[in-house]
Structure formats: C-alpha cells, structure tokens
C-alpha cells in the first residue's frame, strides 16, 4: 500500500508526524506534511499509516492499495 498527503488539504496540524514520524515529515517553515517513503509502506508502518489517516483533522491523508501481508 501507498500513503499520500494531499497538499491542498493539509493545514499543518502535525498529527500524522506525531503518530508516524518515519512516514511523514513536516516542513520547517509551515509544518505542512509530506510522505517520506516513495512507494510501498513497509508492513511495520502500515498500522500507523492507517491511524494517521483516521486522525488527520483535515482528512488530507489517503491510502492507496491494500495492506501487504
């Protein structure tokens, strides 16, 4: 599975980076989030990716594809 942050929806709440600092990095200047991993999210981070999706107040994060085994 892949995880994406919609830059037009992100408002810099920083919740994703709090939950999964290995998956999301925050811009130094405005705190808006980008995904650090290109392509498949490692199995060990998939649950955190899902929690980031559920916790984003702007609903700016989405998951593409199915979790891998």
């Amino acid at each position: 599975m892949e995880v994406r942050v919609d830059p037009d929806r992100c408002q810099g709440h920083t919740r994703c980076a709090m939950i999964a600092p290995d998956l999301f990095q925050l811009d130094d200047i405005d705190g808006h989030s980008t995904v650090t991993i290109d392509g498949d999210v490692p199995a060990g981070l998939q649950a955190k990716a899902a929690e980031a999706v559920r916790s984003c107040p702007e609903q700016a994060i989405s998951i593409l594809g199915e979790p891998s085994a």
Partner: protein
Amino acid sequence: MSDDDERRKNRYDFDRHTPEYRERFEEITAEMLGKCPVAWSETYGGHWVAAGHDEVFALARSSEYLSNDHDVHHERKGYQGITIPTPASEFQGGFLEMDPPGQRHYRQALNPYLSPAAVARWTPVVDDLVRACLDERIETGAIDFVDDLANVVPAVLTLAMLGVPLKNWSLYCEAVHASVYTRHDSPEIVKVRQDQMTMFRDMFAQLTDIRATPRPGMIDALARAEINGKTPPDLELLGVIALLIGGGFDTTTALTAHSLEWLSEHPAERARLSAERGTLLDSATEEFLRYFTPAPGDGRTISADCVIAGQEFKEGERLWLSWAMSNRDPAVFANPNSIDLARTGNRHHSFGLGIHRCIGSNVARMVFKRMLTEVLDRMPDFVCDPAGAVHYETIGVIQGMQHLPATFTPGPRVGDGLDATIARLQVICDEQRLAEPVTVRKDNAKITELGSWFGGEEGLGASEVRAVQHRAVVADRADAGVGGEQVDDLLGLGQLLGSGGEGRVDDVDLRGVDGEHTAEAGPADLLGSVPQAVGVAEVAVDGVDGGDLGRGRAEEAQAAGELVGEAVAAVGVAVLAGADRVREVFRAPAHRGQPGRAAVAADGEHALRRLRRQGDDAGRALLGAGRDLERGQVVVKPLDVGPAA
C-alpha cells in the same frame, strides 16, 4: 411559510454565553447533535449554529463561501468577524478576522516563527520557566496551577517570541485573562479595561521601538510585513499582536488547568500517564484538547448563497462553528463524553480547520506537554482543591479556569526563582537571538551557555543543566581535553573554575576526563531513582575523574576518599548555582568495570549559606566548599547508584 422559515426549520435556542450552557453542555450538545446538527437560533440577531462533526468539517473548510472578515471601517461588505455577538468595540482581531489574500500574507510572515521546527527551539526555555514556577512553590506543598504555572509560562514564552521584554509579562497576563473572565456588566470591568489600555499602550510602544531599533521576534516580522502589497496601518498590526497574545495566553492556560484538575480526580489515570508517557503523552494531549476544547468555536459570515452539508445558506447570514460540540459527536468519537488517554482516530477540531487552523497550535502542544510532565515529575501526588477551583462562569469565549489550588508533598528546589529565571532568560533570548525565525536560526536555545549561565544582571543564577545534554557530551568525548568545542558544559565549568585564579582549579581540574564513562549509567537512571536530581553539579561530576585528579589539594582529597574531589566540584557548583539545599545527588563517573557512584551532600545548609555569600568569586567559593567538605562541615555520603542493567 416564507423561504427563510423553510430554510430555518431546524431551530434551537442557542446561547453559549449563559452559565446554563456551561452547566448543561453535554445535554445541549447531545440534543443538537441528535436533532439538528445545523440549527438556526434567533439569539444575537439570529445566526446558524453548526454542531455536528461532519457539518462543521464541511463548513469550516468551505472558505470560498465563508468569510472571517471584520470590516471595521465599512470598506467592504460590513461583515462582523468571528465573534457572535459582535463586540461593542470595533476592533479587527488580526488575521483571524481577515480573508485571503491578506490573511495568507500574515500567516506566511509568521509561520517561520510558529512551525513545529521553530517552536521546538524554545523547549529549553520553557523547561527552565516551568522549573522556576514549580521551584517557587515546591517547598511549600501548595500551588495554584493557574496563577503560579499555567498563566505564567505561556505568557512569558509568547512575549519572548514576539520580541517583547519578558519582564513585562505580568502587565500583559492579567489584562488578557481578566478580559475573558470578567463579566461586562460587573464593576471590575473598569479596572480590566484600564489594564487592557495599559497593555495596548505597551504593545504600541514595542512596535514603535522595534521599528526604530529592530530586534528579532514576531513584532519585527509584522513591522516589516507587506500585506496586499503595502505596509499595514499600526492599528491593524496591533490587532494582529493582540490576536497572538490572546491566542497564546488564555487557551493553553485553560487546557492545562482542566487537564490537571481531571488528573487529580483520576489518580490511577495520572499514574498511568506518568509511567507510560512515552506512548501516551501525545494521545492524552489530543484527548484533553478534544474534551476540553479551550477555544470552543468561531463565528463566520456566509459570503455567497450556498448549500453545504445539506443546508441552504444565504449571503450575509452569521454562523457559529462549534468545535466544542463537534468534538463530542458520537458518530466520530466512541464514548464522546469520557476521556480516553489512549484514544485513536481522534480527529478533533480544537485548533479549528481549514485555512484558519490555529497558527499557535505547535506552541500550545509543546508548552502544555512540558508543564504537564514537569508537574507529574515534581508534584506527582498533587490534589486539587475543589472548593478553591474557580471555573469561568461562561464558556462562550474560552472554556477556562481562574484558579486551581492544589496541595502536594513538598520537595526541594532545584534552581532559582521566577524573577531571576526570567532575567536570565532575557539575556539568553538577546544573546542567542532566540526570537529569530527558523529560516534564520535553526538551533535550539542553549540554557547552559556560560555567558548566560553566570552572566546577566542576576549574576550567578541557573542551577539546571539538562542531564541529557551533558550525558551525550561525556559519552562522546573519549580522551578529549578541557575545552573541546562540543562540550559547552564542561567548557563552562573549566572557565568558571579557571576564573578563580591560578592554582585554584587543581582539585577539580578536568584534564583527567575519562572516556570510559558508561552511557547507560548516566543521569537517566539517576533521574529515575532520584527524581529531584537535576542539579547543575552533574556537569562537574560527570566531567571529573575522581581516580585521576591532579596535584595539590586533589591529592589530599584523594587521600580522604576519592569521592571528595568530585563532591567539591559538585557542592561548589551547586553553591554557585544558588541551590538552596545541596540535596541533589551527584553522580560519579563509572570507571572501567566499576559501578557508577554518586555523592549526596546533605545537612550542610548553614555552611552553604555562608559560602554563597562569597559566591561572587567563583574560585574562592569553590575552594571554600572544598575546605568545608574536608573539615566535615558539609557531610558527604557516598551512595551507590549503579549502572543500569
């Protein structure tokens, strides 16, 4: 039935400014969420109220149909900003009462001061402030968490970030809080308005001063900002400064006070949070934010006819977005009226949504977490007094608290008081230009720097050095001599000792620093076993190899026992640092194959008081401390601390 009546058929008589709304909040919220997640209320000239989570989400993010504009000069459409009802004084509340692009220009100017990276730089300053606030009360066993802590730290930090002299904090603090909690029809309001005028005069003076003689901070950014291609008028800038102050002060105070009150009422949850803070602190913070929602909502004006969340709105209608009620929507939050410190999927609205997301959210979280954890560490058994707790009578503007007295088991001070700390931090702010934006200054504040540590108008001051900092330093510097660039603490001590004159540094010379100090036996385990041991003297002890002291007095010290040489440094530095009692535990370095040790210096208060009177001469006081140690006037007890397994 008219068109308006049809559109407004979901009705609720909503008045969030009454005491009843506070008392019946859960009941009213459940009723609105169940029956009318968007309702028309006739109160305050008539306005919409959005309570449902989905509805608030959809509305708040529709900035193309919603305006925050407060058109105080009647130059546009006459919209009335974010407060319902509109306050009598026609004053624009900064960029929160603006629409893009001007609103965006302001945020772009201020983001580099308030981003997560920018805010993290201030953590050592906040820690020192919190430490000082707690030190003011720690020996008495009684504190008012609002007056003595939660009002103070956010206020001082906000001024520091603005570039306003820290000592002005009290002038701002009470003016802001009292203006929120004082009823507008009470006799006290006259004094409150006077205090507010004093504050505004100072704000204006700061703006003028900074414009003439720039110094870093958000006011400097505002003074230089181009908004919509031009320099904004002063009154508009004052509105922005007032917004930053209003946003920075009362909200974090409210969150902290309510959270501490709840933790006092739920001691098992408090113990769990303290023990599992590594995993629980973030989720608990978000849950407190959700549950208490310090800023309960925002007003808007509909700027174009639209249908959002199934409701038809007309241009010019007023709308209240209730973050507080949407945060209790059972469709999103299981058991919405209970606090679950480990709650997941907590997409609360407490910092608002969309382009107006609270610009200070990163400050609020950081300051809250630092205050909370230091209270948990130093006053772990605190009990709030329900009879003395004063909640704001109404929660229409801020769900806040005026007082929250508590008692706890007294403990020792670990540093200087609030005034001395603020004076010292001012020097640090100035010297390190802490209030620069993150684009200019990336490094964290350094509280341990020599110039600030023992400098400034207060002279000898700090007694706190973060254990983590010098632990890493010592572990990293095998065979390094005195003055290695990377070792601010040790360098500081070396210079301090050297300043006493020739020959006086022998017994605590740092040249024997041993690279074998085991990282795992560091202050972490020491702090774990002795919570109060945050003494500055750790610097000395970590940096001194008791088995490899120099000549002269050190040899005597060695003969008297290896620990003495270290303890000389420990006690001496603690004296210089102003420790009232040398009850800190000082860790001795762990040598090859040996367990770490620590010395507890106790029962020496009289001797130490006398020593401190000579404290203006660092070397002399240190020598004196050593003599007293050797004469047994300061009792030093060896204590096994043992390296962590």
